[in-house]
């Protein structure tokens, strides 16, 4: 839809995406397209076939002499050339970009070959001989904490990388006074995102200047820039990160590319040539990054009427072979919203991050929330069942009321705005909930298994980096500098002819940042969005970046847009001053009309933006005396509520909080146990909606990602630590044909903390879909005596569980 510039507000309209023309015609600029330097060589990475083994010896002799091979990097050299990456937890074992002395998961990098082309590099991998001494492995986080478990890091002496006990309110008392206590054990699977574009890195080391330049599809947070600089022992201003304008999807996963930035950087330093490495799909599934798998014990103290008064959670979060920053984010990124949308004030959290022989973890769309809500929302259903109440009614009873906002949670979250009961009510209405229960009853009479499931969740966005310091005790934290970052910058310039260019540092991965920023700036500065050039991508030597820059934690719609508005307003203010000076009026007397600035008291006094731009660039002497010439500005927007954790372990771990209510109807084949999603209603409160079509796309994607976690995707390992799902034949990503038709609704309660009132939305339903489906399947099979406390659900698993419930002697699968 082309937009005619008639002065109406563009924010809130589905304008044509600026990016689509180049993306749909195959003319994007992705890392794989880039050849920024001559003489680029190509890397291939030798990876461990063992889940746990000592490396006795690596022989690279034959490989090193192969025609076309220019360098080989092994763990010993990585140990000499670099330091371990810093992590928030005080007791974390050393983590380098390459295995040193020992491998701790299948796929861990062991050596890097640099060669003239990728074919030669891969051939050379076959010629490297590694002498491994295989060791027993452990993959289950509960087994890994048992005393007889194999220890991954001998120096640490335990597989517990982090353990924190957090207490809010008086949970013991609430449990003592409860009418009912419900407790369950939950198992949440390890899965990832599978962006179309895998990781890609190009590194070049200039010996003369000592500058290491790294091109990559890293999408932030740029706090990893100092992390990589420290690991490489390079001054931060000698380490240049460049991100191309297009990234082919990320979903959080590409945050964890940073060890490869160091590894390929070291390979380039060693080989003395620019080096390019594009991860292949097998490597991606084997060793990029994923969410954690988690075993949790969640208990709720409940009153007879269904009111929840407290919860207790014991969490075993599986971080894989090393404890890698920004972990323990999976446990603590949602800390501020640990109570979800519910008003109970007493909470006990006993959290372990456990090392096992699985691949490493990091941000994955929903970062920690799907694990959290799986426990809470499954438990709420079981409370309803035990009390013979309707699950919707139990939820309605416990939701935070709209008059309580902004609402401070017991864990320190400040929920900015929302109407949670109205959101749930809308979902019930859209689904025709009352009639659905009748349909279900009728289906049961016919021997069909139809179930209805809910998934409610608070959707945190714009993480406050301070949360990672919850890994330390308050006493440990007191000794170090506090952290609380949540800043985003936008740069806007107006050229001598009045045309606008906007520079982003939000490293978009396909979310349409260029489009939305053009809408915003067009509204603020009276331009047509097609005339505005928006430049995405980052160059840390030139862009206005901060440690919080990037595209993660759904921060663009809240904070990226806020910085864009403020930058535009800053420039607008300057133009008003120039106009006022030139027209001989007060700036307060001026208003913008389209692309002109007009005096309200005397409309004959008018200047076009083009004219003002001309003055600013061509005739600095005509400007007010104290004014800098030019029209160029950068605005750093900081969220007003981002503060470090306090002495009671409370932290506002995110800066805006949306809300969603999902209602799913499933039908299960009574013979094959195939699961069919018959209806999926999802209602969101993301505050002001900036671009409805992009929002719809985000919700569709988020839902399918969550459905994937519930039914299809798992990075699965056997008991001995061998990896089972190394290709798309076994790691099942749902495709278009597996996607249900979503019915999407919105409740709009604008955030008071962002300039436009918008909150994040990109993760949303990915956090609630897994539990909503689990609840629906549980409901469908409720007559058969099974509880769905584990994902993903496969027909084979369901069949076994049901058979086992019928005759306990049958044994587990």
């Amino acid at each position, binding site marked *: 839809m082309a937009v005619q510039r008639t002065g109406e507000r563009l924010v809130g309209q589905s304008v044509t995406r600026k990016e689509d023309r180049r993306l749909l015609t195959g003319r994007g600029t992705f890392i794989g397209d880039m050849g920024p330097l001559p003489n680029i060589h190509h890397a291939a990475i030798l990876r461990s076939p063992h889940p746990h083994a000592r490396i006795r010896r690596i022989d690279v002799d034959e490989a090193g002499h192969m025609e076309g091979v220019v360098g080989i990097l092994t763990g010993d050299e990585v140990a000499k050339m670099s330091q371990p990456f810093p992590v928030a937890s005080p007791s974390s074992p050393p983590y380098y970009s390459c295995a040193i002395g020992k491998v701790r998961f299948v796929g861990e990098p062991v050596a890097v070959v640099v060669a003239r082309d990728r074919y030669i590099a891969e051939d050379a991998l076959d010629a490297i001989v590694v002498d491994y001494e295989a060791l027993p492995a452990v993959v289950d986080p509960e087994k890994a904490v048992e005393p007889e478990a194999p220890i991954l890091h001998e120096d640490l002496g335990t597989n517990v990388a982090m353990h924190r006990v957090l207490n809010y309110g008086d949970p013991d008392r609430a449990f003592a006074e409860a009418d009912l206590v419900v407790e369950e054990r939950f198992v949440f699977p390890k899965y990832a995102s599978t962006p179309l574009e895998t990781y890609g890195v190009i590194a070049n080391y200039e010996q003369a200047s000592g500058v290491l330049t790294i091109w990559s599809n890293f999408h932030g947070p740029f706090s990893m820039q100092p992390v990589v600089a420290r690991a490489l022992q390079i001054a931060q201003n000698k380490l240049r990160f460049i991100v191309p304008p297009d990234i082919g999807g990320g979903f959080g996963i590409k945050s964890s590319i940073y060890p490869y930035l160091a590894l390929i950087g070291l390979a380039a330093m060693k080989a003395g040539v620019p080096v390019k490495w594009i991860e292949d799909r097998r490597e991606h599934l084997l060793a990029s990054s994923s969410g954690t798998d988690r075993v949790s014990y969640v208990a709720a103290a409940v009153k007879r009427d269904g009111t929840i008064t407290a919860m207790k959670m014991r969490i075993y979060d599986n971080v894989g072979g090393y404890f890698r920053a920004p972990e323990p984010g999976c446990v603590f990124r949602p800390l501020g919203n640990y109570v979800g949308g519910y008003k109970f004030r007493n909470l006990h959290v006993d959290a372990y991050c456990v090392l096992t022989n699985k691949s490493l973890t990091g941000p994955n769309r929903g970062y920690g929330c799907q694990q959290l809500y799986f426990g809470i929302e499954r438990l709420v259903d079981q409370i309803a069942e035990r009390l013979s109440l309707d699950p919707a009614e139990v939820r309605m009873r416990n939701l935070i009321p709209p008059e309580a906002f902004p609402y401070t949670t017991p864990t320190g979250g400040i929920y900015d705005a929302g109407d949670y009961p109205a959101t749930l009510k809308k979902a019930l209405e859209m689904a025709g909930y009352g009639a659905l229960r009748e349909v279900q009853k009728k289906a049961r009479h016919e021997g069909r298994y139809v179930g209805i499931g809910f998934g409610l969740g608070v959707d945190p966005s714009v993480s406050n980096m301070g949360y990672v310091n919850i890994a330390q005790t308050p006493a440990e934290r007191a000794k170090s500098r506090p952290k609380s970052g949540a800043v985003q910058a936008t740069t806007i310039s107006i050229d001598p002819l009045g045309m606008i260019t906007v520079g982003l540092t939000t490293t978009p991965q396909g979310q349409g940042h260029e489009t939305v920023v053009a809408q915003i700036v067009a509204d603020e500065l009276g331009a047509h969005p097609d005339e505005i050039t928006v430049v995405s991508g980052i160059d840390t030597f030139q862009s206005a970046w901060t440690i919080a820059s990037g595209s993660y934690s759904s921060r663009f719609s809240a904070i990226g847009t806020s910085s864009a508005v403020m930058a535009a307003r800053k420039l607008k203010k300057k133009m008003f001053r120039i106009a006022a000076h030139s027209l001989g009026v007060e700036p307060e007397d001026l208003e913008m009309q389209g692309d002109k600035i007009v005096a309200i008291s005397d409309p004959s006094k008018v200047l076009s933006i083009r004219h003002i731009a001309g003055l600013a660039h061509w005739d600095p002497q005509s400007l007010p005396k104290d004014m800098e010439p030019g029209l160029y500005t950068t605005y750093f927007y900081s969220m007003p509520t981002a503060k470090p954790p306090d002495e009671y372990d409370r932290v506002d771990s995110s800066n805006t909080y949306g809300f969603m209510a999902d209602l799913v109807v499933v039908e299960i084949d009574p013979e094959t146990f195939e699961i069919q999603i018959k209806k999926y209603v999802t209602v969101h409160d993301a505050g002001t909606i900036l671009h409805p079509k992009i929002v719809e796309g985000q919700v569709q994607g988020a839902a399918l990602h969550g459905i994937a976690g519930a039914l299809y995707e798992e990075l699965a390992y056997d008991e001995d630590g061998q990896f089972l799902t190394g290709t798309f034949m076994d790691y099942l990503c749902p495709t278009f*044909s597996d996607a249900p038709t979503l019915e999407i609704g919105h409740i709009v309660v604008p955030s008071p903390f962002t300039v436009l009132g918008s909150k994040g939305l990109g993760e949303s339903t990915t956090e609630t879909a897994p539990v909503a489906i689990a609840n629906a399947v549980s409901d469908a099979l409720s007559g058969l005596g099974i509880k769905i406390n584990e994902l993903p659900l*496969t027909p084979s698993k369901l069949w076994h569980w049901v058979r086992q419930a019928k005759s306990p002697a049958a044994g587990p699968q």
Partner: protein
Amino acid sequence: MEAFADEAKILAGGQSLVPLLNMRLARPAHLIDINGCDELAYVREADGYLAIGAMTRQREVEMSPLAREACPLLAEALHWVGYLQTRYRGTIGGSVAHADPSAEIPTALTCLGGTMKVSSARGERVCGVEEFFVSYLTTSLQPDELLTEVLVPKSDPRGGWAFLELSRRHSDFALVGVACTLSLGGSNGKVTAARINLAGVGPVPFRPQRAVSCLLDQKPSDLLFREAGRIASEEVEPESDYHASAEYRREMVGILVRRGLEKALQRAEERLTDGTG
């Protein structure tokens, strides 16, 4: 082909071979690309048979009015092969020569009693499915031989058929797949002929012989089909993997055989009543 002997691989549609090459699981010294052999791409009638050139794209057969008329089971099976996109590229001959026992085309051809025409410098030979499919990804093709044509007997115009499959996600390899045909006798309506083949439960498309026998000369009924399913599930020896256990697969064989027979019966009855037969 003679010159390269077993150092060469034939490249047809590339939908199985190219992933194997990409993952370095197959490393032939030479590839012989037969995509230019247009004369091997055809669907035609030949003497009571449907003749399909080895290089015919799967989608073409799936949409061919002739194939749908003469061998509706094959057309139905093709719907389950990979994705629409891969079917435009993948060939009939390529899938047959790849001989994956969970693949749909070998299963359907085995059910229909297809024969393979194989050529080499030594001459031409024709071999039946039982002789052709040897084991997992293994056929009786010699290194110097090329599969050129697949011949499928035209189906009983009054019979019924079904191809059903169970997979975790549409287009995945079958956990269990079933191909079946059913013919009924004129006046008393008894089963005069039946064929069943299963995908994904053995090294080659498996025929549950006892289940087939129990159907013959019987009046079709719910009970009979259940019995056939039960027997079939006893005849298979499926394996467990990450996606499904052996026990589940065995149970599903029984259910899919029954459902397949029900669908085949329904189609046979429809053909009898509307006189298309």
